[in-house]
Structures are given as structure tokens and as C-alpha cells.
């Protein structure tokens, strides 16, 4: 034969979206929040973001060099990890601690398990939890206008929800984000803009965030510290309307403070560490919601989002196992004894 033609298995065409595109969309979706964080907390926030991203990208490059593998930073997932991690820092965090965070996220949590898509735990969250334990005071040193203050979430916890935190921080402040907290978690408004970008670009579906926020809100509404518990109605004789307003305000405050919004849209939706089955994703979201509720109400620390998501990450194989979807046209799966 005189000419040689290419031969490959079907299909012979491909869709345009690549892994790089997907990661780029996630970066774009985080930009509103990041920009707001920089505006809110100042130039140091930008410095932290850049340092963490560089640390992540460099770690991946070095790891690939040592492991004699092709460099994988082109897929941009290291940039995404770096950004998520940095947005989880208080603005006062020393730069070198942020750099260590990046190294832990990429080397320990991601690359040692096989790189992109193979890690069982969200790299950014793994590193954040590591830092929380290693540098506890630095990681929870929140400031506004150069004074150390408690976050709305911490206040909510410390006061047992009884002194309404919205006296000091109005719900609108929490929504816009001019409250103390980590760089990226404070502004519900800009997080929602980012979430809208992710959904519009078809990067994430709403299954996990809605299941997460929904289950969390329901639990908080009925069983939270200021919730609408039945014994309370019976015991105090408070009228229904007052209790309803109180419970819903409390629930809203819970939804808008701390890392739950950021967690639900940007961390609990991480592809690699969540179930691939649709039912499983809903179950995973509920798992996160229940755990966050438990950590926030009866846990020792104010925040619980990171631990809730990480623990749920660990349950993914089990969740997938019980949610294998039935194939099209398969009526009943016969269970055979193994």
C-alpha cells in the first residue's frame, strides 16, 4: 500500500471541552470572590493567593520531576487547588505557612495518591485541616480593621445563639461579606455569582450544593440552637410567629456565615472526591449537611464545614456502592448470593 492512513477505535470526533477548560471555568468562577476578598482584606490577601498558587504549581512540577513523569500542571488543577486553599486562609496567615499548605495539598493529598482525580480527599481541604491542627492560632486569627475579632460564626457559637449575632453583624453584611472570616468565605453574594458561573458553564450540577444546603437548613431550622423545636413551643408558650421568625433568621445566619457557602459550591463539588452516581451525589450532599449541622451545634469548634466535607469524602466509595444506577431498560436487578 502506497499511502498510510490513521487507524483508531471509534469515535473519530471529540467534543471541545477539555480538562483544562473545566479548570479554567472553576478559576473564573472563583475570581469574583477572590477579588472581593482582596478588596475587603487588602493587598495581603492577593499576596497569600499568589503565594499559595505558586506553591501548589511548583510542588506538582517538582513531584513530577522526581517521579520522572510528564508535567501535569497544564491541566490547571494545581492552580484551582491553590486558589481554593488560599481562599480558606485568614488574611493574617504567615506566607510560609501558606506555602507549606500548598505543598501538603499537592504532594501529600494529591500526587502521592496518583495525581488528578485519584485523590480520595479534597487536596485544599486536607491541607487546610492540616494547617488548622499545625498552626491553630494563626489559622483562626481573624481581623477587621487590624483588630482581632470573632467571626459571626464564632459569635453565634459562643453565645449559644441566644444573643442574636445580627445585632453586631446584620444579615445584609453577611450577604455582602464585610465581616471577618477567611479571604474567600465571607461574601455570599460573590460566592453565588461564582456558583452561577459554574452552573452556567455546566461545570457542576446543583445536586450536591442543594442537597448539602437544603439538609443543613432543614436541620438548623428545626433542631438548631434557636430552632423551632417542638418542646420549645410546648414549654415556653412562645407564639408560633415569633418562633418562626427567630428560627428562620437563625437558619439564614447559619447559612451565610462561616465556610458553608464556599464549601457547598466549590469544595463539596470537587469531581474526584465525590460520588459519580447521581443518587450518590444527593446522598453525599445530605451527608455533608448532617455532619456540618452536628459539628456546628454540638462540636467543640465553631466551624465544621471542612471536616464535614472531608469525612463525607471518605464515605464516597460506600455511597457509590449502594447507588449503582440501574441501566436503561433493566427492570429488576436480581440479587445473587455472593
Amino acid at each position, binding site marked *: *500500500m502506497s*499511502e*498510510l*492512513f*490513521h*487507524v*483508531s*477505535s*471509534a*469515535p*473519530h*470526533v*471529540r*467534543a471541545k*471541552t*477539555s*480538562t483544562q*477548560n*473545566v479548570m479554567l471555568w472553576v478559576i473564573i468562577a472563583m475570581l469574583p470572590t477572590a477579588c472581593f476578598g482582596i478588596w475587603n482584606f487588602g493587598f495581603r490577601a492577593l499576596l497569600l493567593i499568589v503565594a499559595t498558587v505558586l506553591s501548589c504549581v511548583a510542588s506538582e512540577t517538582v513531584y513530577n520531576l522526581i517521579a520522572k513523569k510528564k508535567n*501535569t500542571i497544564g*491541566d490547571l*488543577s494545581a492552580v484551582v487547588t491553590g486558589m481554593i486553599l488560599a481562599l480558606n486562609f485568614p488574611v493574617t496567615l504567615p506566607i510560609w505557612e501558606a506555602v507549606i499548605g500548598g505543598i501538603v495539598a499537592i504532594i501529600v493529598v494529591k500526587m502521592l495518591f*496518583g*495525581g*488528578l*482525580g*485519584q485523590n480520595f480527599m479534597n487536596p485544599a481541604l486536607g491541607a487546610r485541616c492540616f494547617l488548622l491542627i499545625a498552626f491553630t492560632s494563626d489559622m483562626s486569627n481573624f481581623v477587621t480593621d487590624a483588630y482581632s475579632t470573632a467571626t459571626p460564626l464564632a459569635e453565634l457559637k459562643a453565645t449559644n445563639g441566644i444573643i442574636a449575632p445580627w445585632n453586631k453583624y446584620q444579615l445584609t453584611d453577611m450577604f455582602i461579606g464585610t465581616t471577618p472570616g477567611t479571604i474567600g468565605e465571607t461574601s455570599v453574594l460573590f460566592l453565588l455569582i461564582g456558583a452561577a458561573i459554574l452552573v452556567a458553564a455546566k461545570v457542576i450540577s446543583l445536586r450536591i450544593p442543594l442537597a448539602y444546603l437544603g439538609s443543613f437548613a432543614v436541620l438548623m431550622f428545626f433542631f438548631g440552637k434557636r430552632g423551632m423545636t417542638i418542646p420549645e413551643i410546648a414549654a415556653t408558650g412562645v407564639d408560633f410567629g415569633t418562633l418562626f421568625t427567630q428560627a428562620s433568621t437563625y437558619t439564614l445566619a447559619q447559612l451565610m456565615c462561616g465556610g458553608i457557602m464556599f464549601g457547598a459550591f466549590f469544595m463539596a463539588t470537587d*469531581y*474526584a472526591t*465525590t460520588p*459519580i*452516581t*447521581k443518587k450518590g451525589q444527593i446522598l453525599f450532599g445530605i451527608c455533608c449537611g448532617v455532619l456540618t449541622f452536628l459539628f456546628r451545634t454540638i462540636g467543640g469548634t465553631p466551624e465544621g464545614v471542612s471536616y464535614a466535607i472531608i469525612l463525607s469524602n471518605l464515605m464516597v466509595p460506600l455511597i457509590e456502592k449502594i447507588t*449503582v*444506577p*440501574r*441501566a*436503561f*431498560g*433493566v*427492570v429488576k436487578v436480581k440479587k445473587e448470593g455472593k
Partner: protein
Amino acid sequence: MGLKTFIGGVHPFEGKELAENAPIKEILPKGQMVYPLSQHIGAPATPIVAVGDAVKKGQKIAEAGGFVSAPIYASVSGTVKAIEPRRVAVGDKVNSIVIDNDGLFEEVEYTAVADVTALTKEEIINKVKEAGIVGMGGAGFPTHVKLSPKEPEKIEYIIANCAECEPYLTADYRRMLENPEELVAGMKIILQLFDNAKGLFGIENNKPEAIAKMKELVKDEPRMEVVELKTKYPQGGERQLIFACTGRAINSKMLPADAGCIVDNVETIIAVNDAVKNGRPLMKRVATISGDAIENPGNFLYSMGMSYTELVEAAGGFKGQPEKLISGGPMMGFAMFGIDIPMTKTTSSLLCFSKDEVAKYEPINCMNCGRCVDACPEQLIPSRLAKYGDKGLMEDFEAWHGLECIECGSCTYVCPSRRHVAQSIKTMKKQVLAEKRKQSAK
């Protein structure tokens, strides 16, 4: 709204404009003809001619090798030169009858039927069987077997697969525009076999002219209906088409007949009409030749046994140097390593591309994004099945319904990590099925 469709699927670049306006042209075979004895699913046909025999056009040269098999007819007159293994489009070598074409086209006499409605059901099925008709959508399942279900009275729908969901292909579309009467006549004959059935023409809505034409033709046919379908791949997949048209779902262990349906391709139904009415055996069909590396993309009525070379010549030859040739559509077709290969009953197209689009892609890690899950028309978890396939985990593969895969390639198409998802699944499917055969043989 109200367009019927299935769950999942993808929207590949259509590319139909290249050939959709080119009327069907007949090409007369010039060179040597090669008739592979296996152009269908089932037992290979048995040759009934010997080397040196003179044959006429329309003469049977190979007899069906069993019930699930089909005879083969010469499409030219000439002499049998050899009976030997020859390379076919999918890459295998298949025992074939080679005929030297004398260019005279001396034809046998066919016995036409004046009144088709007077034929009994057995007579119709017999004529279809004798004509060597097989499913011409690609699988090549003998049509007479399909038309003889266990309980014919339970068949409620005869679905004409006019979806033509593969990009670039326009042969069925041209048939619907140019020979719609034959399509309707063929459907009428098939409906004669099934008293309780309705004839449906499932057409994707990217072919408005075909829909209008078919609607016009069936408006006085009480037993026929045109079903408009959403343009989505793989709308023409058998299980997907049945679901879209009737709302019934079948799995890999069921036949369409289990859901009261029989699905036939456009070409097949036209061939049924030709066989029953005119007594002509299956020798010709329409194929599309398209792509950016062919001079004049178009639709050609070719004679089975011709080499692809003649099809390329008829379309004005290659434009530049093609890098990839595909027999069939770009989603499920086979890449060929040469064109001196015979066209058979199941050849629907030749696509010639100056660039191999997929060659530049390097697969990277699966990031578990689930795009393949959304695209899978069988509601499987393709990425996981591919992983089980690569690791050889047969049990897990089966537990996650791997055998339900219809090999449409939607998962590979959407994969942002450019992984060969469908390929891994197809390979594993073959292994599992082979293993099952081995066990049942024990």
C-alpha cells in the same frame, strides 16, 4: 416542544451540509468484484459457484449457511476468478467470491408480483429471505429472522429508523427525498405481516424536508405515522429509537419484539419492497461519501462487491492527501487502512478526512467529572466501567451493567480528559461475553 427523544446523548458537529443536497447517482461497477461470504450476523453463506463459472447479474452465488444467515447475489455478469480470503472494512480477512466483471451486465429474469396484497405472510418472508436482505443500518442482522418473531400478533410497532443520527451521513435522507414511495410501499408490505402493528417513521428534526415529504405521503395511510425526533446522537440506536417512539425500554437481554417492536433501516425497507414486488435480490444500496478530503461529496447508488476505490473515483477522487478514512459514521465507524476493500450490504458511507482530529489528543487522568454519565444513553457509569475493563475486573464490570453498553461512543466523545472510554468498555464486553460462552459450553 413535544419532540420525542431519549435520555442522555450528545450533539456532535453534524457536517451533513456537505452531501445532503447531492442527488443520488448510480455508479456502474467497472473493476473486479469481491463478495465476502460474511456480510451479515450469523453463519457465513456457502458458495454455490466454482472458479471458472460464468455468472449473470442477479444470479445467486452463495446460499444461506443456516437460518440466521443470508444468500449473496452477483451484481455483475462475468466469471468467477477465485474463492479466497479477502480483507474487509473492519480489518478482518473473510472468505470471498471474486468475480471478473465483463462489463456486459447480462441479467437474469426476475419474477415481479402484480398484486402484493395477494401474497401470504409466508410468501413475503420467503421472498425477503431469498433476496438476501439484512439490516443495512450497520449490524447486518438477517431481516427475515427479524420479521419472524415468535408471536407476530404481539407486534404493535414497525419502526422505520430514519433518524440517521451519525454526523455526515445523508444516504437515508436522500432516499426519503427521492424514493419515499418505495419506503412507504416497503412499510406496507411489512405491515401486511403484522395485523396489529402500526408503522412509524422516526425522523430527526434536522431533516424538515424529509419530514414534510413523508408526512404528505402517509397522510392517507391509517396505519402509518411520522414521528419527529429531537436531533441528538444516538437517536437512531435501536433501544433509543424504540424508547423515543413508543416510550418502551428494552435491555441487552431483550429483543425489540419483546417490547412489541420491530426496527428496520430505510435501506432495508426499500430493499424489502424491491424484493417482494419486483423479485429483485439485494445487490445495490446508497452510500454517502463525504468529508473534507473528497472532491465532490455525494450520495451514490453502488453495487455490492465494488471496491471503495470506485466510489472514491466516482466522487472525483481525493482532495489532497487524506489522513483518515472511515467506513460508517464518525461516531461508530471503522477507520480503514486502505481503500481497495469491497463494499458490502452494510456499507453506508466512506468518510475522508484530511486531518485525523483525534490524533492530537493524549489521554490524561480521569477526574471523575461525570460527563460520560450524563452522555450515556444507557444510563451507565462509563468511566467506572472503563476502569474495570482496564483492570480486568469482570465481576464489577457486570455488576455495574457493563454488558448493557451499546458502544455508541458518546462517553469517549465528551470525555474532557480524552480517555478511550468506549474502547476499554468494548474490549471488556468482548472478554466477558467470550468468558460466558466458555462457561456455558462446559
